[in-house]
């Protein structure tokens, strides 16, 4: 027993760089996948694909070399529609995640100004967290008139609280830390403390928060579009495609649901695991800042 513990203790320092190196390689791999997806969906509108082209002669065809993802009930190419829909999803996701992150950062920083501001932000955050999430998204999207801007606003205005709570806690911890008091006693200004102590602590959380809001945003976009409150029905979107696919599924056309569904899962999952790797890498204890 003693020998085992001693062996473990002796092995630990040598193992750590190996583990850290493996984590970093994993982060690079996952980052490359995310970058590849973003490049593909960004390039989608420029590819020789027409997601709106109707071909009555090729309605409801299964996957083939000519149409690898098959065609839907109106004879439209499912591959072209899936790629274009993912591009729309990525745009909605990026815009919603960016606005959400901006709200979270602004409120978290505002909370550090005074005790009153801290309490006000705290109450607002807890209130927003306490309300049913999807109902709130629905209400905001509906109030904003639906469509792409409605989805973006709906997701952006409902996804900041968790990140805000993390950032507020991080900012409070840093502000109360001994090293901040020492920096102030060594003649450094509040601005200097914010630049050199607060920003390096908050930035990784902000980036990770942004990346982790992204999959939520695209899943909500699909959900809202599925029930008709999201992207306009004439535009290709995963939610619209899945809603349309119900009729196809009854006719045995599995490909009209499976491929767009898998595309959505792959897009959301790749951002989720990339965000997780990023979080680990940003942790000065767990990873390596």
């Amino acid at each position, binding site marked *: 027993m003693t020998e085992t513990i001693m062996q473990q203790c002796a092995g630990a320092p040598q193992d750590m760089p190996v583990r850290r190196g493996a984590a970093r390689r994993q982060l690079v791999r996952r980052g490359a996948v995310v970058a590849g997806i973003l490049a593909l969906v960004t390039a989608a509108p420029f590819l020789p694909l027409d997601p709106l082209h109707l071909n009555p002669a090729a309605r409801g065809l299964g996957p083939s070399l000519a149409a690898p993802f098959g065609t839907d009930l109106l004879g439209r190419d499912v591959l072209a529609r899936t790629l274009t829909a993912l591009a729309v999803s990525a745009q909605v996701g990026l815009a919603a995640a960016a606005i959400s992150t901006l709200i979270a950062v602004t409120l978290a920083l505002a909370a550090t100004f005074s005790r009153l501001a801290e309490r006000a932000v705290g109450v607002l955050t807890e209130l927003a967290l306490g309300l049913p999430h999807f109902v709130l998204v629905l209400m905001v999207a509906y109030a904003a008139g639906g469509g792409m801007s409605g989805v973006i606003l709906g997701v952006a205005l409902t996804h900041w609280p968790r990140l805000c709570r993390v950032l507020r806690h991080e900012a409070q911890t840093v502000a109360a*830390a*001994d*090293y901040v*008091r*020492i*920096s*102030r*006693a*060594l*003649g*450094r*200004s*509040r601005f*200097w403390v914010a630049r*050199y*102590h607060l920003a*390096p*602590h908050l930035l990784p959380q902000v980036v990770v928060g942004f990346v982790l809001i992204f999959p939520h945003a695209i899943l909500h976009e699909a959900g809202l579009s599925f029930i008709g409150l999201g992207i306009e029905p004439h535009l290709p979107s995963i939610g619209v495609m899945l809603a349309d696919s119900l009729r196809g599924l009854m006719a045995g056309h599995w490909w009209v649901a499976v491929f767009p569904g898998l595309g959505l899962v792959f897009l959301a999952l790749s951002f989720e695991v990339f965000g997780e790797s990023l979080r680990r890498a940003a942790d*000065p*204890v767990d990873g390596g*800042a």
Partner: protein
Amino acid sequence: MLKATAITHRFGAVKVLDHADLFLAPGQIAGLVGPSGTGKSTLGRILAGHLAPLSGHIEADGAPVGFGPGRPCPVQYAPQASELSIDPRWRVGRILENGGAPDQGMLEALGIRPEWRDRFPRELSGGELARVSLARLVLPTTRYLICDEITAPLDALSAEDMMTALRALARRGMGILVISHNYGFLRRHADLVMQLQHGKFAPAGIA
């Protein structure tokens, strides 16, 4: 002269300092001994302006103790847990330059190696961190230094080296208050040793 007069501070119902007076002369090394919970660290923080006392007055060389942007405090406090007093995201080089260019003589006296500058705090031992934490506080403006249990994570030889470095600072006119649990250690190194008794200072001795 660092003069703290009629310092009173309490935590809830517990009065840790009760109209305590303390005088520390330039070039003097004073020791403060006592069991945990008697207010030694609280006093250290109060002297360096990290904590405002409930009442009392502190002045260094005739001016009230304070600090502001571009105006470092003449009294610096080295906390007990050096790993918590250092930003974990900074490299050692930046930590040493926390308040400006570090004192080269102090770096050499404390055995701080140039190759540490590129390392993160987690890549140094507790003793090495304690030395880095102390070295950054020695600025040209630092007149008094409060060292709170800074030799605790050090082995006996390193602790002696650190005290030698502090003695060199004292010879340059810096007043130093060393807080420790170890009465024998303070007897060896300090010019006088005090203890906190019922919130006031008293000469320390083995009871």
